[in-house]
């Protein structure tokens, strides 16, 4: 390197060093950060789809990758029978578009058996672990309930549909139980609590909605929706009991494990509470004031559960803390489901939600 080049490189290094001296003052940095954080609060990320009424989108998303036959047939290296079967079924139906049309079918529609008997079974194959299968089964329970509510809000439910839905719910719940029991994860008891809690929240929320719809059904046979309602109520109680059994099993875990689980659950509960609070505030204008106030009350109950959980956390009762935080998660979840249903189905829920 000649002298001129050396000089030049030295000058450039000087420029670089000089440039690096220029930084934000710590007060300036914090001030800008506070503006950005405020912006983030006003522009929140969408609430988790797994606990919203948008279950159809969840399932459609899982289905969409199979549109790419090259991926499914040519590139997979797993000579896995179930994949081959799944792809074969789709290869047959894709040409006619039957499979994708079936995704939006409701109970009583011609393509509903395709949706339940083919599409959903194929999607189940895609879940490899028992934990993910159990979570998928919970989504199916939610979907069934949403479907029946949609049908009931538009027209009467016949006996055949009522029987079919009850039978499907039975099957999905049996599958949840089986997959949860088979979960080999070291977090088995925690997974069991979370799955049963998720299910309990959905069933309880939908019981309220079905109760309202049962009161409205005037020109059909009210027995059909009543029988679904009674069935869902009894399942809610059963699942609640299973959730408590899972919490008892969880309490036998090590102190470290329980503390870590409780800490994580606290964060989840606080986050959910914040998200649902924003959600209902955002949608306030779409519901009547009584319902809005009831929803706010429920979130206060959730907040209290979190406070009680924090006291337990501080006193070292991590198992109880976890249960209280999980309760807060359940309450916010139910509030969100009901609020969303109110808007989507355009129904009025008389009072709301009684929390246990």
């Amino acid at each position: 390197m000649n002298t001129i080049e050396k000089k030049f490189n030295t000058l450039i290094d000087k420029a670089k060093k000089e440039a690096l001296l220029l930084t934000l003052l710590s007060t300036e940095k914090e001030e800008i950060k506070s503006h950005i954080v405020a912006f983030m609060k006003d522009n929140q990320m969408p609430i988790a789809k797994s606990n919203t009424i948008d279950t159809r989108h969840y399932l459609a998303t899982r289905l969409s990758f199979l549109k790419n036959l090259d991926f499914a047939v040519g590139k997979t290296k797993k000579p896995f029978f179930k994949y081959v079967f799944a792809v074969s079924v789709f290869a047959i139906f894709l040409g006619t578009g039957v499979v994708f049309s079936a995704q939006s079918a409701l109970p009583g529609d011609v393509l509903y058996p395709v949706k339940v008997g083919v599409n959903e079974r194929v999607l189940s194959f895609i879940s490899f672990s028992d934990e993910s299968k159990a979570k998928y089964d919970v989504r199916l329970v939610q979907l069934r309930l949403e479907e029946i509510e949609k049908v009931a809000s538009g027209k009467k439910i016949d006996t055949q549909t009522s029987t079919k839905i009850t039978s499907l719910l039975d099957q999905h719940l049996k599958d949840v139980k089986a997959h949860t029991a088979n979960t080999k994860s070291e977090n088995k008891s925690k997974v069991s609590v979370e799955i049963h809690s998720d299910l309990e929240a959905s069933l309880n929320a939908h019981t309220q909605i079905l109760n309202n719809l049962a009161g409205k059904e005037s020109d059909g046979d009210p027995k059909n929706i009543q029988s679904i309602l009674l069935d869902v109520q009894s399942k809610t109680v059963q699942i609640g009991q299973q959730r408590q059994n899972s919490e008892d099993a969880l309490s036998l875990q090590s102190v470290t494990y329980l503390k870590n689980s409780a800490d994580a659950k606290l964060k989840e509960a606080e986050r959910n509470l914040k998200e649902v609070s924003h959600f209902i505030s955002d949608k306030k204008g779409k519901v009547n004031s009584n319902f809005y106030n009831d929803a706010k009350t429920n979130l206060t109950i959730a907040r209290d559960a979190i406070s009680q959980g924090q006291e337990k956390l501080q006193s070292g009762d991590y198992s109880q803390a976890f249960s209280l935080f999980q309760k807060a998660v359940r309450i916010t979840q139910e509030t969100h489901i009901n609020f969303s249903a109110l808007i989507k189905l355009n129904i009025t829920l008389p009072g709301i939600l009684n929390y246990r």
Partner: protein
Amino acid sequence: MSRETNNDKEKQFTDAYDTYADAIFRYCYYRVFDRDKAKDYVQETFCRTWKYIIEGNEIENIRAFLYKTANNFIIDESRKKKAVSLDNIMEKGFSPSIDTRQKDENYLTGKEVILIINTLDEKYREAVTMRYIDDLSPKEIASITGDTEDNVSVKIHRGLQKVKKLLKDQEHNGVSH
């Protein structure tokens, strides 16, 4: 998108702010030479990035994305206003302190070199500044500006040639024995 992922994304984003705010500030400052404006641009850059994230988009390289967003914003703003001249810069207080009494290899300060770089045509100025002041690679510069890596390398090379010539002229004019 799970609840935990949402929270993770928020945390990752605020961590990215803590990590890159100074670099983005420098990047903006050496284009507008106005501290307050540069701070506004930093805020706007991060807000626009957050909006991009909540629309469901994934960002592979947050550092490059931030630079690109800042660059696009600066371009938009510069179209509204006239370019920053050396006189403007000096008025605002970034006065070079050329010492015409000295004649050695260290007579130019880092600030002076930056100012000299700033007198280049925009295409060369951008490439040289991003390469030597912001310490970005030609590949990163290409992804930020939307140019090809080869073109960026050519611009850096030509820009440096011009800087060398200007520095040589400066050195020559600075002689006052």
